[in-house]
């Protein structure tokens, strides 16, 4: 059976709707069903997918993810790869996609700031200012978000001194 919508791909989703006592049945392929916004077991299976898709749209408006700029320098992964699989390519992806992931982490966890155990990899030097700096940068972002520019200017100066 072909899909009612694209009349090309085979229909795998059979949707029966009852509106005002009249019954209609539609036969759709997965792609068309997704385009028409119909929830199926396939797209419900990954609870992140809807969420990621909706985040993706906002992100696209802010900064297009295509091209070299939207690619992780280490694993060459893109945000589109992430949206598709729900998995990042490597730990370094957290740097090029920092802003996008910060927003995502806030929505997922209610915060993007790790307050648990800190860690320094073997052979790495501990920068005594790093913790403080990271905290100040966080406060700066919040100040900018809330348009508290006086505080933002002060925080920026304190960051410069530490840097």
């Amino acid at each position, binding site marked *: 059976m072909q899909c009612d919508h694209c009349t090309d791909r085979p229909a795998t989703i059979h949707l029966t709707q009852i509106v005002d006592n009249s019954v209609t049945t539609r036969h759709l392929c997965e792609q068309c069903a997704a385009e028409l916004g119909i929830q199926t077991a396939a797209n419900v299976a990954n609870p*992140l997918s809807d969420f990621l898709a909706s985040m993706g749209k906002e992100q696209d408006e802010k900064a297009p993810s295509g091209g070299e700029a939207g690619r992780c320098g*280490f*694993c060459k*992964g893109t945000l589109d790869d992430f949206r598709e*699989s*729900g*998995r*990042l*390519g*490597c*730990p370094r992806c*957290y740097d090029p996609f920092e802003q996008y*992931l*910060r927003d*995502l*982490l806030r929505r*997922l*966890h*209610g*915060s*993007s*700031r*790790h*307050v*648990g*155990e*800190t*860690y*320094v*990899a*073997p*052979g*790495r030097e501990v920068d005594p200012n*790093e*913790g403080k*700096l*990271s905290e100040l*940068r*966080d406060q700066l972002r919040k100040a900018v978000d809330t348009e508290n520019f006086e505080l933002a200017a002060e925080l920026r100066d304190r960051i410069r001194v530490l840097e």
Partner: protein
Amino acid sequence: MKFDFDLLPDGGISWLDASGPEGHVVLSTRVRLARNLDGRKFTIRTTEADREGILAEVVEAGRKTTQLRDAAVIRVDAVEPFDRQLLHERHLISKELAGLEGGAVRKGAALITNGDVAVMVNEEDHLRLQCLSSGFALSEAYLELDRLDTELGKELPFAFHQEFGYLTSCPTNAGTGLRASVLIHLPGLVLTKEIGKVLQGLSQVGLTFRGLYGEGSEVVGNFFQLSNQTTLGKSEQELLEHLGTMVRKVIEYEQQARGILERDAPTVIADKVWRAYGLLRYARTLSFEETMNLLSGVRLGVGLNLVSDLSVYTLNKLLVFTQPAHLARMEGKMVGDPELPTVRATYVRQLLDADAARAS
């Protein structure tokens, strides 16, 4: 390769003994930490050679820790599908690592275990450190795991970000990488139909529930796995305390529900319990799901002191050994064998008879 389960310290099921706190309601506590190696791609983007490299590094680092010095290293990718299912049924490896989620087992997939703490290697994250304990023992399990994490972290360069914490393949695990879960039996709340409210309440305070086998599994036999939903923005201690407080409340609600059942419907409950016991003791064929549900009824009976000639240990043992792969292996059969329901009934009967004989 056929896997020799005698290689596993305690067969990997020391948590079965029901010795832990609140053992009558809480079966086991599991804590895991997700860790990845810096300078490596995450597992889904690795090649076989990458994963072999990661495994070698982790095994070597493990040898230098006090806990994994003499640990067993099980190459999951070299184990037969049947035995991989067995390892999964024993809660030693995830469905993903066992290659049971469709597709083949991933080359380089391995489990390093000393019986108390273990590391899954080349799972969704490079390392999944885990500790499974008997009963309700969140801080004890975390303490063990934290020790291993600290020692491994001195040997291996974990990927860590000043702001985001430990970096994971899926951002839902970032930060602490900690997921703690408690496997809890809630027949009272199910029978009094309060369970929906309780689960809804838990989701409002950042906790989630799953079935017996973790992510994506269904609830069978009134067993629920309660765990933290978020991993970032709270410290490890805060996450554990929050889950602990809520689990304690759930235990209290469960006790209240059982109290109500005892008070308002003693005959109905006693009938339910003894019917379940009777079926288990005398039935000639039993499906896995039916067994789980009947065991739930009998476990409730033991909790209410209605059934006295049966130990919680036997109930736990039945829970593990009546699973398809366990049963099939014990009887030298295949998982899909049509004889299994008969074999299962015989096995259940033998264990219940033995407990009854000991009691009389």
